[in-house]
């Protein structure tokens, strides 16, 4: 039977370089798997933030729609008892639209900025828009609806 080892009867063992390389390969594998999980977590958080932003835009739009797109609609006055909302700077108003106002809203520890704008597309049809943004979001989330007046 052939036994791997030196002639003196001892097995050769692993060198320091071999052990270190093995450790590094193991570490890269573990960190790679963990990084994948980290990215998943990050994406879920981003999705949750986006959902909260969309919810906020929906709440603003539905409520504004309920006033037939009134130019005197004031979310701060309507929601201040239930939300941490204040008038502040927000995303810029798209060209050709009239600014209603911009607000800053704290939702679950995150600050969202919402800009409400409108334009009369026909004599009896008004387009309402809300643009919501938050710190980690590069793009602005926009929602549009129409009300017959």
């Amino acid at each position, binding site marked *: 039977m052939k036994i791997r080892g*030196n002639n*003196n009867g*001892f097995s*050769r*063992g692993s060198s*320091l370089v071999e*052990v*270190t390389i093995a*450790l*590094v390969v193991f*570490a890269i594998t*573990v*960190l790679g798997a*963990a990084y994948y*999980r*980290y990215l*998943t*977590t990050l994406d*879920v*958080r981003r999705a*949750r933030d986006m959902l909260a932003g969309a*919810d*906020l835009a*929906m*709440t*603003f739009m*539905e*409520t504004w*729609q*309920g*006033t*037939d797109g*009134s130019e005197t*609609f004031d979310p701060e006055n*309507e*929601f201040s*008892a*239930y*939300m941490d909302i204040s008038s502040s700077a927000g995303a810029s108003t798209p060209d050709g639209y009239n600014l209603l106002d911009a607000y800053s809203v704290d*939702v*679950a520890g995150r600050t969202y900025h919402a800009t409400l704008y409108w334009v009369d597309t026909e004599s009896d049809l008004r387009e309402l828009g809300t643009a919501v943004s938050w710190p980690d979001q590069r793009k602005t989330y926009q929602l549009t609806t129409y009300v017959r007046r």
Partner: protein
Amino acid sequence: MSGSQAKKGPSGFTLVDTVVTLSVSSVLALTIAAFLADNHKAFNDVYRSAFCPAAEEDIAARGVFQKTVRQASSAEGRASVASDGSWMEVQYYSDSDVASPDRSARFYLSGQDLLLERTDLETEETVAVEIVCSHVVAAGFHLTGDSAQMFLELDDGSSSRTLHTSAVMRSP
């Protein structure tokens, strides 16, 4: 074979080799352990917040509120809300064939349960009382023009959520 060669043993690790290897291994292990622990905690937090009972209650409450309010009449006097926002009542069409609202729906908080009481407007009898969602620690209702809003704070002990939703009532 000479006598000096016969006495020579295998060349194993020196003390310096062992110390260096242990140091490198320790630094690697600690770094990986810290990263994994933080990663695991973040993943668990996100998982818990996405699949906790409060999250399910959130979805259920939105659905019932939206569906009920969108069936409600926006005519004058058909919707009312408490001055402190603790309850809200709307009159709604139970079916698309009925000519006028024939039911009323009242949302209110009982303990930590958000209840919806449906009443027949003609007989004034309670048709059903259903639990919309549980784990509610605060609730508020509001009417703005033809729309109704609901604000809830949910907390199931492990996770909390803030819910706000708004829906436009249908034409009179």
